[in-house]
């Protein structure tokens, strides 16, 4: 299946600053992929590049094998995008926003949109500016789903929501994915949500991609090794050390790979997802990925 989002050598520069550099990833189809990284790492820039709002400075990004610049209409029909802080027209009513979506999109499912909003108890005559944060996010998601997209790009969709609103948003998202098989790429800080909802993880740091892979595989591939204090150069054979922390008498090594035999005094533990993310984020130089072959449609 053709990848919904792939990039090779992608870079974007603003003036003298590179917002992202040498991005090379290939998100598999049918996944809910998470884009995780510190602020300013380039998450929003990458999503905007994929959505066709920005042009790359170098390299390429392809959505379903096509460049957003070369096939704008094709991709606009297949990709739903919700920007950070869900920009909408504050003085529009919910009904106005729905009509906006209907007028500007060719494959609009008006009935599904209305049903969804009714089920969520969102009043059609309420102005967007007077909706709660949770309601607003749901309206934005509904709008993006209205054109029955094959790919959803969400920029920090739950950042400002309380726990209940977050849960309801995620429920809506997973339900929509279950129904339509939509691929999703969402950026977020909240790792706890990601573990339930996402099955693919991309970690970016300092404008570069550190890690990209199936969450289950990543969790299976990483271990925390704790043992007596080692020296800088000492590395257990056959594994890649992502991060090393040393106390006076003890060393902790976050490694990627399988350790065949553990030396005496060492124990091995699984790494929870949040710890894995933190380990990579704290060592910007960690993680290297080979460049994928770009699929062209």
């Amino acid at each position: 299946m053709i990848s919904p989002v792939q990039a090779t050598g992608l870079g974007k520069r603003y003036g003298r600053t590179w917002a992202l550099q040498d991005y090379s990833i290939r998100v598999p189809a049918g996944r809910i992929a998470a884009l995780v990284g510190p602020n300013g790492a380039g998450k929003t820039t990458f999503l905007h590049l994929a959505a066709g709002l920005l042009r790359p400075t170098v390299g390429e990004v392809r959505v379903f094998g096509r460049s957003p610049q070369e096939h704008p209409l094709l991709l606009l029909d297949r990709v739903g995008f919700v920007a950070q802080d869900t920009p909408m027209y504050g003085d529009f009513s919910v009904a106005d926003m729905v009509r906006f979506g209907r007028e500007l999109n060719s494959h609009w499912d008006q009935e599904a949109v209305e049903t969804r909003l009714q089920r969520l108890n969102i009043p059609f005559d309420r102005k967007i500016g007077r909706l709660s944060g949770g309601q607003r996010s749901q309206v934005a998601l509904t709008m993006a789903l209205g054109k029955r997209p094959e790919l959803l790009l969400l920029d920090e969709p739950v950042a400002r929501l309380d726990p209940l609103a977050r849960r309801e948003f995620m429920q809506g998202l997973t339900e929509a994915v279950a129904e339509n098989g939509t691929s999703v790429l969402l950026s977020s800080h909240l790792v706890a949500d990601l573990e339930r909802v996402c099955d693919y993880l991309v970690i970016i740091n300092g404008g570069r991609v550190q890690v990209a892979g199936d969450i289950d595989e990543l969790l299976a591939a990483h271990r925390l090794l704790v043992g007596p204090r080692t020296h800088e150069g000492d590395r257990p054979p056959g594994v890649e050390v992502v991060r090393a922390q040393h106390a006076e008498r003890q060393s902790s090594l976050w490694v990627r790979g399988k350790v065949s035999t553990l030396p005496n005094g060492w124990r091995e533990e699984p790494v929870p997802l949040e710890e894995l993310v933190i380990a990579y984020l704290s060592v910007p130089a960690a993680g290297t990925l080979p460049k994928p072959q770009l699929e062209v449609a």
Partner: protein
Amino acid sequence: MIWVTWRQHRLEGAWSLLLVAAIVLCLGIVIYEAGHPGCPAGARNADFCLPNNAGGLLAQQIMRFNLVQYGLVVLPALAGAFVGAPLVAREIENSTLRLAWTQGVTRTRWIIAKLSLLFILLMCAAALVGILEVILINSMGSQANHWNWFDQQAPLTVAATAFALALGVASGAVIGRSIPAMAATLIGVVATRFSLAVFARAHYMSPVLFTSHDPNSLNGTLGATPAAWWLDEPSFRDASGQTINQIDALSQIANLSPADAITYLRDHGISIVQYYQPADRFWTFQSIESGILLVLTAALLGFAVYWVTRRVT
């Protein structure tokens, strides 16, 4: 896109409609009353007067305060600033472009649809008020001088409105913030139109030189050239074309009778001259200035579309 454009800009649209309706109403009243017979005693010019009934008094007030005339001059600039400037700028500063440009229409279609609707509506409004103004001036009879209200008539009102809108949209797209863009538009429109009016307009065609030996022509009542645009003050010239001191010349004929003065000036090769543009050139000049503004409009619109589709991030 028609519904979307209207819904987004209906506030500006409503205000524009209101303003235009008010001006149309005022112009209509004056035109209507001017067509009625029955002038008050001592009216200045029998060709154009307004009756003393209720409608006529209202029309007189409208004419006295000149608000309509000032309004017609500034309306295009206001349209450019309040409708044109926020068109793109507001969506940039509110980040709603991230919503609008990820729906099912390309940026090009989006901007062209918005521009088309607004231009058509506002230019029609400008045409309406401009034509009414022409009718009004025509109804003034023999004292009507179209040159006195150059900026307020069609087709210039249409071209000026188009220019202001185009400048507004372009400024908004580049500056990206509504208030600064509005300011830039107002300044730009005023500066351009002022420059054209003051520096360029007199020279669209070579001015005609009016020559006379009659000192009465200094009073500016030239029956031979009614409704002209006088470009400067009358001056005295000698036979070789050099300007001579007015006081000097006048003192030479101070004690002569009017007929003798004419003879004296003619015999001494002294003429009174003044540059003007004749009445029959008025519509040509309107076309020329409108043409200049429309060329600028086209350039600005092309730039605005380019900027929106290629440069805004």
